[in-house]
């Protein structure tokens, strides 16, 4: 099944669950869904269209909202399944019950963007060190790190 057929199928069968769908580039379909519909759309894609491989979850800081993109692929097409979550209430549902391999990516999102992943099986920190201060999320756009001037030891 090529990407056009998949696109037709998505537009036909789960039209009511998605906000919009488009073919962004060859073999790439972009699908926007509501936060609440994420799990059902994901389950549909996995069971009906064999999108079993979750490559990664990308977070993007859009200012007012965070965009979370689930990169799913099967043997012909990649779907960029995206949801928006407001900055004031950064919550996303955990997809581990549908795709168990998502756990590390969700933990990374929690570390880097401060998104609260609901029902995550393992909420510990993944990448940041244990004494990293609370409330500092490095990949948010308002987190700035001013590099201090480099001091080379043994200066003349």
């Amino acid at each position: 099944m090529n990407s056009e057929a998949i696109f037709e199928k998505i537009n036909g069968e789960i039209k009511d669950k998605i906000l919009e769908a488009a073919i962004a580039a060859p073999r790439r379909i972009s699908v926007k869904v509501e936060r609440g519909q994420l799990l059902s759309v994901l389950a549909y894609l996995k069971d009906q269209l064999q999108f079993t491989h979750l490559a990664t979850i990308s977070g993007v800081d859009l200012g007012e909202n965070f965009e979370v993109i689930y990169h799913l692929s099967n043997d012909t097409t990649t779907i960029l399944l995206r949801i928006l979550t407001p900055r004031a209430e950064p919550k996303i549902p955990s997809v581990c019950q549908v795709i168990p391999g998502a756990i590390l990516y969700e933990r990374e999102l929690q570390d880097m963007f401060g998104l609260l992943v609901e029902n995550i099986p393992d909420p510990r920190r993944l990448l940041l060190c244990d004494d990293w201060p609370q409330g500092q999320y490095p990949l948010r756009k308002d987190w700035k790190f001013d590099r201090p001037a480099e001091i080379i030891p043994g200066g003349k």
Partner: protein
Amino acid sequence: MNNKIVPFLPELLRHLFKKPATVKYPFEKEALPEGFRGNVVCDAAKCIGCMICVNDCPAEAIDIIRVSETEKKFKMILHNDRCIHCAQCVDSCPTKAYHMDAEYETAAFSRHDLKIEYK
């Protein structure tokens, strides 16, 4: 499974009487390939101070400081201690002022010794 007994042994015994593959490095040196990316060398006479290399350098290893506003005088500092030897400056320079030499033993006792100033 068609397991043989110690199938690796013939190869090992054959190499017992062969010349080792090791190169005794500080005493013997292998020939460098043509186009090896060693240290960056600048021909200061050709530099026009366009700052393209400063903007393109991924390691921030090139500084060009304008010495006086009226005359076209620059001071260029090449931080060889930060250089990652990618040769992007060689590609970017519009007047071909840079080239790479074949030096690869670049250790120094202090990072300050690696700085080169051109005027």
